[in-house]
């Protein structure tokens, strides 16, 4: 309940307003040559970063927007995007 997240439409809100949408794994891979294992990895395997990870959240109790943000998993705090992502976020 202490987690806060910044919705791009509504601003900073209590974490309970949101639904977690998983780590960002990018768009789904092309089906050409896709093995069942690779597909299963895309759907189910997580990196489980100890540190800052990029993830999807949905503002379920608010505007309904899906967005990505960065969270430090060791402190459970939303953080600013790391330098490399600036200009790409």
């Amino acid at each position, binding site marked *: 309940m*202490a*987690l*806060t997240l910044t919705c791009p439409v509504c601003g900073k809100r209590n974490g309970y307003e949101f*639904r977690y949408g998983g780590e960002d794994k990018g768009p*789904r891979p092309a*089906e050409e040559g896709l093995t069942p294992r690779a*597909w299963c990895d895309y759907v189910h395997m997580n990196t489980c970063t100890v540190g800052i990870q990029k993830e*999807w959240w949905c503002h379920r109790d608010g505007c*309904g927007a*899906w967005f990505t943000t960065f969270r430090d998993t060791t402190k459970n705090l939303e953080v600013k995007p790391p330098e490399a992502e600036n200009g790409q976020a």
Partner: protein
Amino acid sequence: MDRLKQLPTLRINTDEPLTLKYRRKTYRGAAGDTVATALYAGGVRIFGRSLKYHRPRGLYSLDGECSNTCMAVDGIPNVRTENTLLKDGMVVDAQNVKGSANFDWLGFIDKLDWMMPAGFYYKTMHKPAAVWPVAMKQIRKAAGLGVISPDDEMKGRYDEQYLTAEVTVIGGGPAGMAAALAAAESGHRVVLLESRPHLGGCFDYRVTTNGQGTHLYERARELAEQVKQTANIRRFEHAAMVGAYNNNLITAFQVGKAGDGFTERYIEIRSASVVVATGCIERPLLFEHNERPGVMQVGCAHRLARTYGILPGKEAVFSVGHDLGLEAAVDLSDLGVKIACVADIREDGQRPDLLEALAERDIPVLGGWVATHAHGGKTVKKATLSTVEGTVRRQFPCDLLVASAGLTPVSGPFILAQAGMGYDRRTGYFLPTGLPEKMFPAGRITGINDPDAIEASGRLAGLEAAAAAGADVTQAAAAARQAVAALPGPERGCKLVTAPVKGRKSFICFDEDATVKSVKQAIDAGFDVPELVKRYAAVGLGPGQSGIPGHNLPLFVAKYTASTGTPKPTTVRPPLVPTYIATYAGYNHHMFKRTPLHDSQKADGGIFRNIGVWQRARYFSEDFDCKEEILNVRNNVGMLDGSTLGKFRIHGPDALKALQRVYVSDMSKVTEGRIKYSAMCNDDGCVIDDGVVTKLGENDYCFTTSTGRAGQASEWIRYHTRFDNWDFHIVNLTDSMGVINLSGPNARKVLAKAVNIDVSNEAFPFSGYREFFIRETIPVRAMRLGFVGELSYELHVPASYMQTVWDMLKEAGAEFGIRNFGVETQNVLRMEKCHIILGQESEQRTNLLDVGLGFLWDRTKSDAKTVGAVALRQAENDPGRLTLVGIRMADDTRAARDGAIIVDTKVRGYVATMRKSFTTGEAVGMALVESQLAGIDTRLQIFEDECNGELLDARVVPMPFYDPEGERMKL
């Protein structure tokens, strides 16, 4: 007893007398008294018996730092009487006693302490093993103080408040008030929490003066008045902070006073920054029988007199280690307590004016002396003092022994905010080594004791907090910093750990009856760090958490283990203060959704159940098999309220693309005037929802979803198109239309009476979709579907007109004997047709093909990247998958229960839905079994819960069980 009146520090009003009943005697108190002070004023000294040894216990801290004075009040157990304001007519009982607190039949246990060393219950009472269940029963009766019945209900109103503030100040003493005032100057929203019923803190009851010559109690009231007059400070008195979480989320609860609309209120504050000005409690002095009634801390004795007008005793001995003790001795002597002597652990370093004052009053001060024994069977009668080295002893008769080793900061908020704690050599305090972000300490918690320094540090912290919340206060903060630097800083604290005693009866934790001796036993057994000792010897595990033992335990462990490293105090967890579960529960409104027909369905005898966030009528009679309801639909006509069905409009240039992404069928085949049934799958190919889609116009569709998925349908579609940047729009119309399901062979006859359009089979065939108006006013969307397997019309009607249309149809159907049918009846009817319900006949391991819906899947539209298509393609030829089959019991008299498992040498599947069918007379249903058992006529064995090994026989049969040609729905 006579109270001291006319003291300017009093917080009681003797003009408002209140009474309480204890042991059939009436005690008189005054408005402002706590239950404990009223009892003490009436002569009560023993308030209860301790947990393990049944030792007599009484007032010690006056702030409820331990469970000594927990009593049952008006039937509520474990009420902290030192913190509970007296209300007229309260009925109080002692806890944990057989007999009375004064004479407890179990008091003899105290003499058996040698039988109960640290951790004895880990080593005894389980050899032989048969002993344990007996022992466990007895221990459970003895463990805990108060008694409660599971049927007891808390009376009162418990609600909550959610606040946002820029600065939250925890603690309403001088530092807290100064901080709040300073932070408020910037215009920020400030919240001030004070756990006592009044502001004032460590100034509130003291006559000593500050640097300006103002009595501290006057200064406290001045500051409080300023706080009250400041509009942007919201103050909460009698509100204890209980938790601190990430991002400065602070939780607290406030006790309501007379006239408040609540008994207790949970308060949650999201604050940009926080000032912690929680001050100090006292570090208990460890000596033999240090918890005997009559032994109390400095603040307790002093406040009994000054705040409550009660002389704590007649003849006192003091054993202290800091100036507050000397100050209290001077003041209490002036108020009428005869003080035999003041033993000060310190040899030197006392404030000269205090020594002078004591000398003036002929009170001898013994420097370098400390109490070693409190004597007296039930209350203190005599005290033994000795030199700190233990070389010389003296005894003094007394009924009051004021004992304290020094101060200890209330650092709970910092520990909760996960600050590392380290030992400070000067003050002897455990202080935060790294401050959490935007959290600022102020006042005595930092080690200062000079009144002006306390206020100045509060002002500085308030300004720093305001700055951290965005205010521009650089100049003011710089001035405040200078002011603090010019005043006295943290003072040397007393470092004595224990008096020179063996410690067999020196209690380090009062709640758990843990002694110095038991701590030594724990350390000798190898549990040599505070966190381990805490658990093995039960030090600090009681409701007081670390209030009494928190500071002494790590100091003692370090000394006893001759550790060279710095000791670490044990952690504390929320709630920092015992809190009622009712306070956390609050109103706990059941927020649920009703259909527009809720009340009339109830009036018709509907029996409701929760389905997701909805309440729906499941049955319409006490017959939960629903025989009559079912046969009525099969042979006549019935009506169901299907309003919870998800309904959506999707429009926009890319609406079709979005539909193609989430539905497995080719949605480009959807045309106006016809409905198309399809399903949605997840990335594993498992079907997660089904519904019908129809086209309203160019780039304009509407679709339905199941009740349970309506809330997430938009979210789902948006998630699976999040990388595409398509232009489409979804409107959730679930609640905007009520749905009437009119089903049965007579359905057409009823509908024809109520509407003007041609409802013949030619004009409105199966799978048709029609829009029309009832009496030119009420718009209706009608679909012909076959979920229950009879002639059915699904009418979508604006919610506000729903009752009107329902009543119309009811009237039209009266001549046919039309009746309601509920969710359970619908469940059985569709089961007889083998129409699946998602989540009932499907689950995580079953994909679209497994449940027989493969015909919906269009493989050619791979450009659409339909969710689930990849998994379906990859899994298509997998052997051994769960498959949906129809089953029939060998014995038709009883169906197996839903969820019963199908077994041979292993679990091979389970029964999804099964009923004794009134329509066909057979016990039939659907099950999921491994594909090798899916052949028609395969014999199956069913294991029901608690069947005691008796399996039921069944076999696989063709689906559906009723009207296999599907003629009834196409009538």
